[in-house]
């Protein structure tokens, strides 16, 4: 039982480190027991070193660096424990457009084996989406679906490149 968790955790640790370095285009990160002497009871913590920077606890990174580190962990969960679909609700809120590009490039690569449904306000995120549902609500408090032209959103993405 404990051995099982240790095996799963080891798989998770290596997936996380690999995905972090991929998303940050460099750097390293570790997911580790806070107390390796006590694997049964120990907490777990994230430390990360974006390229060119010092290794620090996740709490000392910038807002967007924290988000990208947490997203790396999320993608590691998905890799070791695949599910038929994955729904993500506004996880790009703290990211700049170039980090959204890196994140969506990664999703694009794993789209064969993974279905994603992404809720977002960020235009740059939409560039990898094959279908876009619009939701709207009038003053009557009822949600309705509206057709969304992918071209409205992707002709000029936030980064200023034409992507349609």
């Amino acid at each position, binding site marked *: 039982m404990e051995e099982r968790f240790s095996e799963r955790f080891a798989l*998770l640790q290596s997936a996380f480190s690999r995905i972090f370095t991929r998303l940050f285009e460099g750097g390293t990160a570790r997911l580790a027991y806070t107390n390796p002497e006590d694997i049964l009871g120990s*907490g777990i913590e994230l430390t990360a070193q974006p390229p060119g920077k010092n290794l620090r606890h996740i709490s000392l990174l910038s807002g967007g660096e924290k988000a990208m580190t947490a997203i790396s962990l999320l993608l590691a969960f998905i890799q070791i424990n695949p599910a038929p679909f994955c729904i993500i609700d506004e996880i790009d809120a703290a990211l700049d457009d170039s980090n959204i590009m890196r994140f969506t490039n990664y999703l694009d690569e794993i789209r064969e084996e993974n279905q994603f449904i*992404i*809720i977002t306000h960020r235009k740059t995120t939409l560039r990898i989406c094959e*279908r876009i549902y619009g939701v*709207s609500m009038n003053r*009557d408090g*009822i949600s309705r679906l509206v057709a969304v032209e992918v071209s409205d959103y992707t002709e000029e993405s936030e980064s200023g490149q034409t992507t349609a």
Partner: protein
Amino acid sequence: MYLKKLGINGFKSFASPVQLEFTPGISAIVGPNGSGKSNITDAIRFVLGEQSTKSMRSHRMDDIIFSGTDKVRQKGACEVTLVLSGEDGESERVISRKLFRTGESQYRINGRTVRLRDIQESFRDTGLGKNGYSMVSQGGIESIVSAGPAELRAIVEEAA
């Protein structure tokens, strides 16, 4: 296997029935603040048998049935239907859940009435169970970021 269709009727702000069809790849849901996007995520949790009102951002079970506005009367029940595509020659799986204001929930798989336990069983083999991180709520990333060591351990134990 992928989420092919989602039908929502009477659930939270979806007073009128809506039907979404997704591609096996990547789809997006967009719209103004408060329009109902996160409610769609709650609807998926609901149909998969979610028992905790908290994870659907509600206090009581009947909070998730359309509560009415000054123009439209409240609904007596809500129903969500999810269609999972078939895999390796398997046929589609149609899961639905109907919740009445009385508190009673009705579950169906491919039209046949089943118990909550059968819904959860049916998912164990698909990887859609409580484990894994197939649904990230709004603010879910922030929760990972601010999690202390014990909390992060709990997250890892559940997801890994």
